[in-house]
């Protein structure tokens, strides 16, 4: 098969992930068992600055692990930005940790997301944080409380702008 044909088929594959009968994006955030302290997360962002989750103690931090090739990750990204817009003035930060990809790949994907993400985009090219955070599949999202402990978890794609999720995140920030 020619390379161009392979690229064209990739577009079909992405299209397949956007076909009519997609798995549901759900809207639950479930309390984290044990409320363990948030593990280390210290990574570069799009501006080559280091972002350290421990510097964000006192805020609610939504940590989303994702990749551009992961269909539910792509589908939930717009709603993550809408959550960011709804909560950014309420002591809430959103950190999206890209797993295993480089700046160019992520940057070109972000141009296709509507609304365009304005939250922090971090890079974990070696996927080491997946082990540190005990992530077993993509996407996975954690909501860290102002006390630095994981309050909620969500395995799989979500509609992050769903009122139930927005309410839980804001209430956690108000605690």
């Amino acid at each position, binding site marked *: *098969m020619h390379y161009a044909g392979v690229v064209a088929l990739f577009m079909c594959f992405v299209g397949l992930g956007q076909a009519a009968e997609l798995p549901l994006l759900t809207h639950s955030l479930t309390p984290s068992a044990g409320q363990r302290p948030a593990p280390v997360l210290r990574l570069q962002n799009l501006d080559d600055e280091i972002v350290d989750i421990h510097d964000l103690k006192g805020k609610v931090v939504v940590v989303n692990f994702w990749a551009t090739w992961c269909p539910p990750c792509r589908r939930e990204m717009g709603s993550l930005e809408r959550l960011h817009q709804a909560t950014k003035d309420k002591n809430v930060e959103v950190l999206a940790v890209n797993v295993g*990809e480089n700046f160019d790949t992520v940057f070109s994907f972000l141009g296709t997301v509507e609304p365009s993400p304005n939250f922090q985009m971090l890079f974990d090219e070696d*996927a080491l944080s997946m082990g540190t955070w005990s992530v077993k599949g993509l996407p996975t999202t954690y909501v860290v409380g102002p006390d630095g402990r994981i309050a909620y978890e969500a395995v799989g794609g979500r509609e992050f702008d769903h009122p139930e999720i927005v309410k839980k995140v804001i209430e956690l920030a108000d605690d």
Partner: protein
Amino acid sequence: MKNITVVTLLVLASFCCHADVAQSSRTDALTGAETWEIQVDGVHFSLTQLLPDQLRAFYVNRGFTLEQIELYAASCVYMTVLRNDRAPGVIRTVSSRWPISVNNRPHELIPVEQWVERFSAAGVKKSAVIAFRWAQFPPEQEYRPGGDWNQGMLSVGLPAGSRFDIIATWDIAGNEYRAKLTEVQCAK
């Protein structure tokens, strides 16, 4: 009499909404890929064929060469979805141990880690191996009720056109639950 009819209908409706649906299948009109799915005890389980050309395209775009991914692309791969809609608790599953049978004979999945070791030994780019690892259906996972789910690739390791039965198993507080899909076919 009218009241009895209404009550009967309400009872039937309540059974309808909580009953588990039997295995069903459908074919995607665009790609021809088939899906098999079932809902058991509040858990949704489905397998959708991924065609070898779709897999070649996906992994070449992640950094594999066609030669490096060929064995996997031809190994009968499914987009697998497991979702805990309303099971009576957190479900724990080890997909690498899901029983598979071909003509009533047991067949074992190739573990994800074995694929990863094979690709690393073959000199596949690190970023491509990372994408492969995380594109697979999780070998182990926990799903909370209310909508935790994963979508990932599962290689069955059978020739094109093979038919098999697969049982997704999970555990809730020490009790095992099962969802069986029968006569699933590998893409031709």
